[in-house]
């Protein structure tokens, strides 16, 4: 199934004003934002939609604190949509709405949808790094700028808490053609759909049923400097850092997670590994050393000449 990745996450929230402000400050482009909800997009057109938790047109809510109500996947073409529809109709209801978007539920009850992808191909450069042996930045081109465009580039991945990770994984792998690239023992798999080489667009974590829902979602930035700069800007606006900045081992992506009013963490990530079918999945127990190569914490700026700020 030529599924590329999540195009859009749809949330039904308690505090629309707070969520709209949050996603605006996070750096997404504001397509619309008002008392009834909002739509926020990355540079490639992927994004997050905010609606009221009482919106009757949303798939039903879980009986947990989760606010993610639907994950909309982008697929390569109409024939992929037909193949997904035929596959899922074998054992569950699949609805096709007026726009041709398919709607169904996975084996854990997460609402999923499929559309011909809305994402635009980006023609942009990554952060250019100079190093002895490989000079990549033009002479006189300065890497650091206060007015750097920190708009996230693309919706990277979403992470679910699930009560039966084996069954949850089997659905995505056997029915939708995802592949496991790595896994944490007793925790869950990193899953890659067939239409991308990104290390993962879905990670799942085994938890008790009362936790079921979204753990976090994240957007790809242009590189580690953008993760640092966007995260620092977010901290300066008063937002609460949860974990990071740092660099994961599985996927190698730089990360910085924040608390949010969307009922889950929201992350900035960058520079994820790519894998193809020749990659062999790794498996290690979860732990602090396994989760990151290094971890830092934001602090106030300082220059030598006096004691550092506490």
């Amino acid at each position, binding site marked *: 199934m030529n599924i590329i990745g999540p195009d859009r996450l749809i949330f039904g929230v*308690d*505090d629309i*004003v*707070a969520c709209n402000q*949050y996603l605006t400050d996070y750096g997404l482009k504001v397509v619309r934002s008002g008392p009834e909800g909002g739509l926020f997009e990355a540079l490639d057109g992927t994004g997050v939609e905010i609606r009221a938790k009482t919106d009757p047109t949303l798939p039903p809510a879980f009986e*947990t*604190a*989760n*606010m993610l109500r639907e994950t909309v996947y982008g697929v390569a073409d109409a024939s992929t949509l037909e193949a997904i529809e035929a596959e899922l109709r074998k054992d569950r209801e699949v609805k096709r709405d007026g726009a041709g978007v398919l709607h169904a539920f996975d084996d854990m009850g997460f609402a999923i949808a499929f559309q011909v992808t809305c994402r635009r191909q980006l023609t942009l450069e990554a952060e250019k790094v100079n190093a002895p042996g490989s000079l990549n930045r033009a002479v006189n081109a300065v890497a650091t700028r206060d007015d750097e465009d920190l708009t996230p580039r693309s919706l990277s991945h979403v992470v679910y*808490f699930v009560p039966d990770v084996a069954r949850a994984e089997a659905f995505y792998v056997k029915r939708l053609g995802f592949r496991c690239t790595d896994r944490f023992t007793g925790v869950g798999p990193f899953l890659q759909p067939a239409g991308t080489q990104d290390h993962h667009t879905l990670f799942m974590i085994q938890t008790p049923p*009362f*936790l079921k*829902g979204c*753990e976090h979602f994240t957007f790809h930035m242009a590189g580690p400097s953008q993760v640092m700069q966007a995260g620092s800007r977010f901290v300066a*606006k*008063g*937002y*609460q850092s*949860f974990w990071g900045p740092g660099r994961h081992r599985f996927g190698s992506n730089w990360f910085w997670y*924040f*608390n*949010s*009013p*969307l*009922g*889950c*963490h929201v992350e900035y990530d960058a520079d994820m590994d790519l894998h193809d079918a020749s990659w062999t999945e790794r498996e290690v127990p979860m732990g602090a050393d396994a989760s990151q190569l290094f971890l830092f914490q934001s602090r106030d700026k300082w220059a030598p000449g006096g004691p550092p700020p506490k």
Partner: protein
Amino acid sequence: MGAGRPAAEVTGRSLCAVADVKDGGAKGFPAHGVFVVRRGERIDVWRDDCPHQNVPMAWRTDEYLNREGTRIVCAAHGALFDMDSGECVLGACLGDCLERVPHEMVDGAIVIRTNDKRS
């Protein structure tokens, strides 16, 4: 609760004046690892530490409550807490409680004890 004991009798850390906390709102004190919730004259002080993963709970400075101001929210995973008992009523730490931090009022200020090693 009134103004409380006169200042000369008390040893503790003064967080802020009651008037500095919005009525129906909350205020965080990261240096002490606590947050205050005010409902009219009633003040509750809680350890800013969600029982799920022992992390700070706000999503932004001073933002600890749901939209209606009827529940405390942990903005890690959206867990909801009863504002009277501190018990988690929905979410990741169902049934666990926030830790209440004893306080007293001194000349209209909210004061927590200094012998609490985390203060």
